[in-house]
């Protein structure tokens, strides 16, 4: 059932789109960090969120 691959290999080029997307979100993350958001996220994450778990 298997076939041997003798045909010439197609040249594959580096896709740029992933790097653009990753850079854009990295910048977004930096903006969030610059506004002090992680401290707020940490503050929330350290408490039991009763409404999150359906008992509040």
């Amino acid at each position: 059932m298997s076939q041997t691959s003798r045909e010439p290999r197609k040249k594959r080029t580096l896709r740029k789109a992933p790097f653009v997307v990753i850079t854009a979100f990295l910048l977004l993350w930096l903006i969030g960090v610059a506004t002090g958001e992680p401290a707020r996220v940490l503050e929330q994450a350290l408490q039991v969120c009763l409404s999150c778990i359906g008992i509040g």
Partner: protein
Amino acid sequence: MEAARKWIQVIVAILTNGSWSFPFTKTLYQGPLKVICAPGLNCYSCPAATTYCPMGSIQQLLGGLRFALENGQYYFGFSVLGSIGVLGGLFGRMICGWACPFGFIQELLHKIPSRKFRIPRMLSHGKYLFLLLFVVVLPLVLVDEFGSGSPWFCKFVCPAGTLEAGIPMLLLQPNLRSTIGLLFLNKFVIMLLFLTWAVFSSRPFCRTACPLGAFYALFSKVRLIKLHLDEAKCTNCKACHHVCPMGVKFNESPNDPECITCLACMNKACQFDAISLEIGGIPLAVPDRGLSPAGKP
């Protein structure tokens, strides 16, 4: 490769739930690691959770946005969105297949011997609705008299939160049991439905309701690591259709938003080396079945 994926699922589940002092402290982990974003759906109110849940956090930030703005704090959720955006750009839904504890639980449940059923493709659109409505619009728009919104998805739907946080917290803190009401009952029933469904169908929550999966699915065409279909080698034998846990017809839709890159099609199905793993367009791996690897004469 399947064994490696299972090990990575176990390791990530342990790392994101690595605080095992809760039987003694009776509460959740409160250390600095909780500033790190969990890649998968993992409730941060789980007593063992060491990271924060991106979906829970973004709902909390959007729900408190009016109050924050009034106080001159610009908490739009950019750091959370940036974290999951970078992960999405790198891996897309590969996270679902390799690094989501709740996805792993569903996979284990699906191993229970039973009659298996397909999930209609139409239902896969539901998760986008949950992302848009329950994670973004409702927490932002429906606010109380103090201007605070609720985390709608966590509060009314999330079965991962009920399983990983609600039930353990009720067991650890008996005083919370008096607060059980219709809200908890609703979430408990939803959790039972999804866990039961997971026995009969593959990853039902991931495919129909997970907002994080919906977010990562948006990166299906542009993510760095993805599967590549060599159309010249593909014989359209449809073997890849039968092994996919997400119901993807890979030869017809190589950039399918449902693909979790579990590599089952590449390693278990394709006999013609038509499927390979690539990083940014450059081939990384070929099937490890001893067949002729692409690129070798």
